[in-house]
């Protein structure tokens, strides 16, 4: 436990101090606003009809989780390999601290630190909405949306961002990751074979439809479930509550597998 706590604390501290961890999400949001994104309009313009706190917070979460994890994954890509790059790994590996526990501490410490700006942006907009419309319930819905929709996806992304660069240069991973994110989360399933709308989608479609029972302002926003004419529909069961929890469990299981694989690969290389 002490190894885990120590690693988590110091990895968090080192990551949260990086300017890029704060600049990248801030610039992403700014860019979205500058190119005419509807983020603020949806929240504060009565004409847009976003006066229902639950819907507003979920929609806000969806917009943030569509784009911000791209920067999130890219920022985490060098966190595990840097111990070897900095040549600090031998000092750490020569301590009695168990490597698997250190990896877990590094994973959670860097994941939480890198997520902090995303949380800050979401929380700031949620608070602004709650104050503007006099709806404190928005804060509860923001918390629920973040926990069910965003957290599993961020943990999934963080695990792969740490592990996959063990097999390829970090810049190559970043390029492939951006491509994967667009293909696996944003490309419509009836356009080409894709993981969009499946239980393996980290954007959180199943929790939104199945657990938060949100289908958009007009009730027709289907983020999960089978799509007529699409391939890979066996990965898109009906969005029931069970499917919602299954999606979260699969993402977390895949994250654990990625970390275990990364640890095994690192052990094999160093021994």
């Amino acid at each position, binding site marked *: 436990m*002490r*190894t885990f706590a*120590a*690693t988590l604390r*110091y990895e968090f*501290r*080192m990551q949260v*101090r*990086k300017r890029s961890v704060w600049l990248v999400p801030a610039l992403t949001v700014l860019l979205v606003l500058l190119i005419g994104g509807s983020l603020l309009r949806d929240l504060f313009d009565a004409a847009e009809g976003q006066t229902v706190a639950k819907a507003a917070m979920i929609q806000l979460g969806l917009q943030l989780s569509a784009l911000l994890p791209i920067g999130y994954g890219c920022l985490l890509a060098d966190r595990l390999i840097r111990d070897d790059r*900095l*040549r*600090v*790994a*031998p*000092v*750490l*590996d*020569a*301590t*009695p*601290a168990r490597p698997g526990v*250190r990896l877990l501490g590094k994973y959670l410490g860097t994941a939480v630190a890198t997520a902090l700006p995303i949380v800050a942006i979401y929380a700031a907009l949620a608070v602004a909405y709650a104050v503007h419309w006099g709806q404190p319930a928005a804060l509860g819905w923001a918390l629920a949306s973040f926990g069910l929709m965003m957290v599993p996806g961020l943990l999934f992304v963080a695990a792969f961002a740490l592990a996959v660069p063990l097999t390829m240069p970090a810049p190559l991973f970043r390029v492939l990751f951006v491509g994967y994110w667009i293909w696996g989360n944003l490309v419509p399933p009836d356009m080409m074979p894709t993981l969009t709308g499946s239980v393996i989608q980290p954007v959180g479609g199943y929790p939104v439809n199945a657990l938060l029972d949100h289908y958009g302002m007009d009730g027709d926003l289907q983020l999960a479930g089978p799509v007529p004419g699409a391939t890979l529909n066996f990965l898109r069961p009906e969005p029931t509550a069970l499917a919602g929890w299954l999606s979260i469990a699969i993402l977390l299981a895949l994250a654990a597998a990625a970390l275990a694989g990364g640890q095994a690969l690192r052990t094999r290389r*160093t*021994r």
Partner: protein
Amino acid sequence: MRIEISGLTKTFRGRVAALDGLDLVIPTGMFGLLGANGAGKTTLMRILAGLMRPTKGRVTVGGHDIGTGAGRTAVQRTLGYLPQDLGVYPDLTARQFLDYVALLKGMDERTARRRRVAELLEVVALTENADRRLRGFSGGMRQRVGIAQALLADPQLLIVDEPTAGLDPEERIRFRTLLSQFAGRRTVLLSTHIVDDIAQTCREAAVLAKGRLIFRGTVDELTRRAEGQVWSVVTGGPAPPEGTVVSALPHETGMRYRIVAPTRPNPQAQPLEPSLEDGYIALTGAAQTTSRSSSSGATRPG
């Protein structure tokens, strides 16, 4: 803490034998490990520190078999390791880095840990820079942080791999003094290709060449290997072809060479008292000759 190595072999990718059937016993105290680049010193250090598993053979440290996970962990609890090319986290301060490593070494009690970190920063003369980020530290300062982290848990076994490479003369002396003061009833294994570091700090040493042990004994015994084989030669031209040139200094009539050769390299050569470096050269030169004879299938004269 006694180290016993038996039949130790480490091969990489099934072909390159970094260590080849090494048998060695390292007693308590300062012990030097010499060898050229690629001799297997760092591989041996990494195996003893539990960073690498042997391909074959057995290693026990203080009675613990490092071939087992439990044995490795037990050794690492009493180990201080200063690797070759030490790296640090540039965004941490010296104090934070030492605190982090101390936590990983199991020093849970905050007050005692902080006190120990402060003590060691004082010992390595870094108290004034303790709260500066490590990215601003010179090579010598980083090495001092390195030795401080190795001493954190008051280890019974200290492994230092090429600790003085890149340090200025003053820092090298400070380093060596620190190591000697620390040794006492502990085992300090000093691996280096700087012979003078061994000469100044160790009573006993071993020499590796191509993964094999070619010498194990006292520093005096290694020095005596060059007895009758060290010569001073002054020439106005190139060095005599026979032997190995250890040093070359400008002289009013040309160059003064210090040469290690089994026989007088030229009629004007003057014999000299051997140093440890001469002994090392004599040993490794003889080892190369033996190796060449073996590989060419030469037979002994009848």
